[in-house]
């Protein structure tokens, strides 16, 4: 479904992503792990078009998407959440998701119909399914951090993607919230038939959900394999231990 080859991106001579490769198949849940600064977020930015790669190819459903505009990539079926909460700060929870739904339905140039009558059911459905149904009218800044991270995912779902990219979905969450998010992700895969690509520092979580794992180090693909294989891979242990950064 997604096929990345020889992808490279540098900033002022610093190789953030260096000759990376990755394959994600339909229906898979793939995790990207690696120490801080390994280039995970940059990789995601490259896939979703926030950044343009220096070289290499990103093919999604057999179409080249490298260096395309973010909104075009989104319309092809890739939606994402952000590591740092990245919401529409002055809008309500409902409206946050509605923006995404409206954008997907292409209703964005409808000038005169009141938007409170459009896409209400679908938006509410998404909020229900992520468990924010009761808080639809809150301004999103009033939510707890965990709820905001969930709202991140809800907005991404509003685009009804085929592939969901989650950048550290449980960062900063309490253990309970992490567990809930994990359950949510599993449910989403079943309910929406989603393909998920995510990165995460919580190894327990990664190993409990991922079908396959990609390990990144200094912008390069170190290993790309099943969880079992990764767990026993010496290179990975070295990367974490030798790199000095704890996998927290």
């Amino acid at each position, binding site marked *: 479904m997604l096929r990345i080859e020889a992808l490279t991106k540098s900033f002022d001579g610093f190789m953030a992503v260096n000759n990376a490769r990755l394959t994600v198949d339909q229906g898979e849940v793939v995790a990207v792990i690696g120490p801080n600064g390994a280039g995970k977020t940059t990789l995601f930015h490259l896939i979703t078009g*926030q950044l343009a790669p220096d070289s290499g190819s990103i093919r999604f459903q057999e179409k080249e998407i490298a260096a395309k505009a973010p909104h075009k990539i989104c319309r092809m079926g890739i939606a994402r959440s952000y590591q740092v909460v990245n919401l529409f700060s002055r809008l309500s929870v409902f409206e946050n998701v509605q923006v995404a739904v409206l954008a*997907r339905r292409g209703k964005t140039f409808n000038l005169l119909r009141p938007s409170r009558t459009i896409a209400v059911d679908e938006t509410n459905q998404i909020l229900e399914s992520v468990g924010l149904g009761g808080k639809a009218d809150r301004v999103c800044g009033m939510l707890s951090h965990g709820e905001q991270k969930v709202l991140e995912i809800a907005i991404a779902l509003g685009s009804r993607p085929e592939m969901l990219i989650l950048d550290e979905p449980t960062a900063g969450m309490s253990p309970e919230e992490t567990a809930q998010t994990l359950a949510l992700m599993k449910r989403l895969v079943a309910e929406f038939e989603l393909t998920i690509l995510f990165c995460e520092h919580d190894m327990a979580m990664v190993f409990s959900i991922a079908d396959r794992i990609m390990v990144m180090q200094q912008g390069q693909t170190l290993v790309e394999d099943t969880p079992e294989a990764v767990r026993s891979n010496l290179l990975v242990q070295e990367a974490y231990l030798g790199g000095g950064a704890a996998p927290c």
Partner: protein
Amino acid sequence: MIRALFSAKTLLVAALLLAALILAPQVLPRFYIYLMALVFVTGLLATSLNMVLGFGGMYQFHHAVFYGFGAYALTLLLTKAGMPPVFAYLLAPCCSAALGLLLGLITVRLTKLYFGMLQISLGSLVWALAYRWYSFTGGDDGIHGIPLPDVVYSSTGAYYFSLAVCSVSLLVMYLIVNSPFGRIFQGIRDNPERCRAVGVDVHRHQLAGQAIAAFFAGVAGTLFVTVEGSVFPELMFWTLSLELIIMCLLGGWFVFLGPMLGAAIIVVLRTFVGIYTEYWTLVLGVVLMLLIFFLPEGVLGFALRKAGPAQADPAKE
């Protein structure tokens, strides 16, 4: 459509207000009728600016260009092209919208201060054109004694005309702010990056918003000509644009009627304080500084917050 946006009570209040405004010329002295017409014009202009500023988050630093352009377009269509007034009144705002589109094509690639300063530069070129093209625009002397249709020639006629046009424009802008387009626009204001990520073509929306705001600024420009019977390049000068931003701030950015209130306050203040002292800008400056310190959400924004949390939500309604 209307039902979905307004409660019965709101409609009633609006109807009463409108009735009062329609009856006003029967009771009020002539000068106040003129002043209120001026408030409608300025308020409409400030509201059109706020469409992109408060609801779109664009640093629209030179909105007055579209206002002046509309005013000049109407004047030149009437005097030079000899067009029937009905068409001239319809075409002039479209000229503004076209200018908005043209300048927008160049500016929307930029963000924030860069966007604003490029707009000031381009707008100043348009201003220089009006200021220098003596044979066509009358240069810095402007054009005065514009032949207007009889219905709007008297100050009462001009009042009713601007009341009607202003009300309709406000209603349409309100609908736009609450439409899917308006919702997306607010999304862009809050987070353009995220908007792109959910599939919104941010530049195209900003361009459209620019054209719409320019259109209504043009409408305000035609009303100015109706009320004052003159045009001059100052209508396009950048200082006026800054004053407009101040009106939006004063009334409240995130409330639809905030700029209207801000415009009313400024117009009334400068008229009446100006009678007593030459130093009214000193007063205005101090008031604004205090406001930014203590009431950054503007007068109406503050009042609504105090009035109750249910209505405090700025983006709703």
